């Protein structure tokens, strides 16, 4: 299978110089499909390649950039609101994901889509944080009592909240990975950094959080975009100390296996510059050869091709395999089976709708 243009351009943006008109057209579609239009606007600007985009198509990239910048501006305002609301109960939230990248001025914030704000609140502080956010206008969507308790008991976050007036979505995490998950680690061990008064995870923990999420997923609709984020995050490890620290933290938090996959596939798919020694060291977390073969077969297909776009049966199969894996990793079977059975019954009986309407 020939490599997709979008992957070529992520690896070596200069390749776009040689795109034919028809290739630019295909590339535009791929950018829309993967949500990477704004990211490429940033990459092309930085590498002074903007003039190679055909004039007629330039507006697509510019518009995506306008949206990305606008969201970035909006989430900065949101950060202030959230901090103010939580100050009342003496809690300092830790910002995660996109907001954290923005606050820390990481390059990965450029051209990213900021759809919501993610914060981390430690378990003991959860109730008072929820109360304070409620007073300041954040509301949880309607859901059944079962779903509500499921979120609290087994998930790593509260049901998503939305601000009554501003409509901005807020995800409150009380753990970085689902509590039931095989790689769950104690959130008390997280390392933080302070950027101009805002708390975010320290760089290595930001990277770890990013790859844990990507590799624990069971759906990969925007897999390539997330992989591109990870690629840019890895590039922030400019010196050996940072790489050492990353490997050390991955070991400490017990996510070595995921770290191995992240380094492997980021390098394999996007040519991320990772020192040979780091790859070597991460080998100690490699799975048994049969599993590795399966992952090597599935991940490169799934991360590059969204399942909704896939026509090839092999890609669909790869998605299915990783879908099962994702669920398997997040929940042991004795929890997963009753959960899925219950969800299915509620959907068939229409009870989920009755309960949410009530």
């Amino acid at each position: 299978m020939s490599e997709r243009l979008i992957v070529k351009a992520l690896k070596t943006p200069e390749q776009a110089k040689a795109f034919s008109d028809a290739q630019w057209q295909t590339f535009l579609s791929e950018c829309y499909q993967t949500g990477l239009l704004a990211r490429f606007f940033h990459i092309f600007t930085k590498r002074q390649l903007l003039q190679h985009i055909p004039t007629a198509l330039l507006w697509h990239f510019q518009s995506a950039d306008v949206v990305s910048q606008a969201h970035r501006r909006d989430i900065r305002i949101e950060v202030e609101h959230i901090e103010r609301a939580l100050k009342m109960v003496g809690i300092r939230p830790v910002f995660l994901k996109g907001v954290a990248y923005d606050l820390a001025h990481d390059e990965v914030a450029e051209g990213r889509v900021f759809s919501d704000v993610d914060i981390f609140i430690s378990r003991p502080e959860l109730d008072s944080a929820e109360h304070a956010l409620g007073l300041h206008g954040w509301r949880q969507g309607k859901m059944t009592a079962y779903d509500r308790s499921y979120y609290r008991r087994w998930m790593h976050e509260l049901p998503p909240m939305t601000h009554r007036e501003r409509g901005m979505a807020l995800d409150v995490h009380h753990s970085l990975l689902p509590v039931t998950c095989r790689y769950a680690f104690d959130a008390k061990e997280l390392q933080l950094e302070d950027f101009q008064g805002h708390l975010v995870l320290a760089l290595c923990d930001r990277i770890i959080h990013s790859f844990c999420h990507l590799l624990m997923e069971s759906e990969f609709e925007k897999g390539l975009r997330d992989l591109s984020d990870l690629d840019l995050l890895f590039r922030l490890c400019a010196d050996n100390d940072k790489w050492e620290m990353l490997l050390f933290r991955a070991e400490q938090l017990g996510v070595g296996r995921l770290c191995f996959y992240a380094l492997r596939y980021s390098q394999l798919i996007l040519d991320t510059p990772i020192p040979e020694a780091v790859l070597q060291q991460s080998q100690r977390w490699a799975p048994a050869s049969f599993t590795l073969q399966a992952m090597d077969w599935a991940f490169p297909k799934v991360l590059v091709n969204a399942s909704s776009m896939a026509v090839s049966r092999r890609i669909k199969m790869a998605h299915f395999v990783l879908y099962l894996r994702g669920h398997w990793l997040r929940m042991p079977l004795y929890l997963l089976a009753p959960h899925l059975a219950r969800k299915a019954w509620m959907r068939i009986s229409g009870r989920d709708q009755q309960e949410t309407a009530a």
Partner: protein
Amino acid sequence: MILSNYSLAELHGKLKATGVCFRTGRFVSRVRSSIENVASDLLQIYAGAEVCEEGFVDFDIELAPSGGYRRLFKPQVNFSFNGYLPFQPLPQDQSLPLMEWGLNWCVSNHFQQALVIHAAVVEKYGKALILPGQPGAGKSTLCAALVSIGGFRLLSDELTILDCDSGHILPNPRPISLKNKAIKIVAGLPSGLNMSRTVEDTQKGSVALLQAPQISLASWDKEALPGLVIFPRFKADSEGGTLQDLSKGEAFLQLANQSFNYPILAERGFKAIARHLDQAHCYRFEYDGDLNAAVDALDGLMRDV
């Protein structure tokens, strides 16, 4: 070359295979569809659209029959944009209105180079007449009348695009979407324009589309200067209609409220409206349904600005 140069069979064949690229307003779309009546509908209301086989495509869309057991007894259609499905499927009979809503969605979600306002806009004497309005205010009926019998040029029936730097209107001429009672009224106007079949029972009631005049299509890139902003309201007992001055402050807020991307453009959006209103006159306009009288009144106002 225009779309009506194709025979029905040719067009259907092309839509089914590689798709057909043609101009939909300011933008070029590639439309694919294996659904039979899409071809005949397009030949009605996009008859004069320029076929763009060479060059780039802005919106790559498809109207595809949706899968599943439903297709056997109640065939449905999905709108997709580069493979992404922004809407729920609709009955296949509604493919044409779905395509129009989809194309509006493409513009209002992806085009941030200018302010996009939910309003009809026409041009005469080089100046624009913007008609914002809540659904049911009669903006499309009025717009169709101005275009059919008033000699106005259609710039857009749904999406008024304001250039942020100049405050000028960027045309986006596409078919006019008519709903319920308006369909019969407009069908009675001597416009010489094709009207699509009426599609019943959509989310918005019955819908029919009126072809955009050839002159509008040909001058899709000719901007219009600020002229009038009219907030229309259909009121049967307003006898002869009334015109009322509207403060620019109020007009500003209404336009900002009706904009899709005002929150995204922020300051640039503010400037776009401000620049436009600096040079435009604003009125509230109630009309009693006598379209000839309404068109005359608005024409008179246009002459004066």
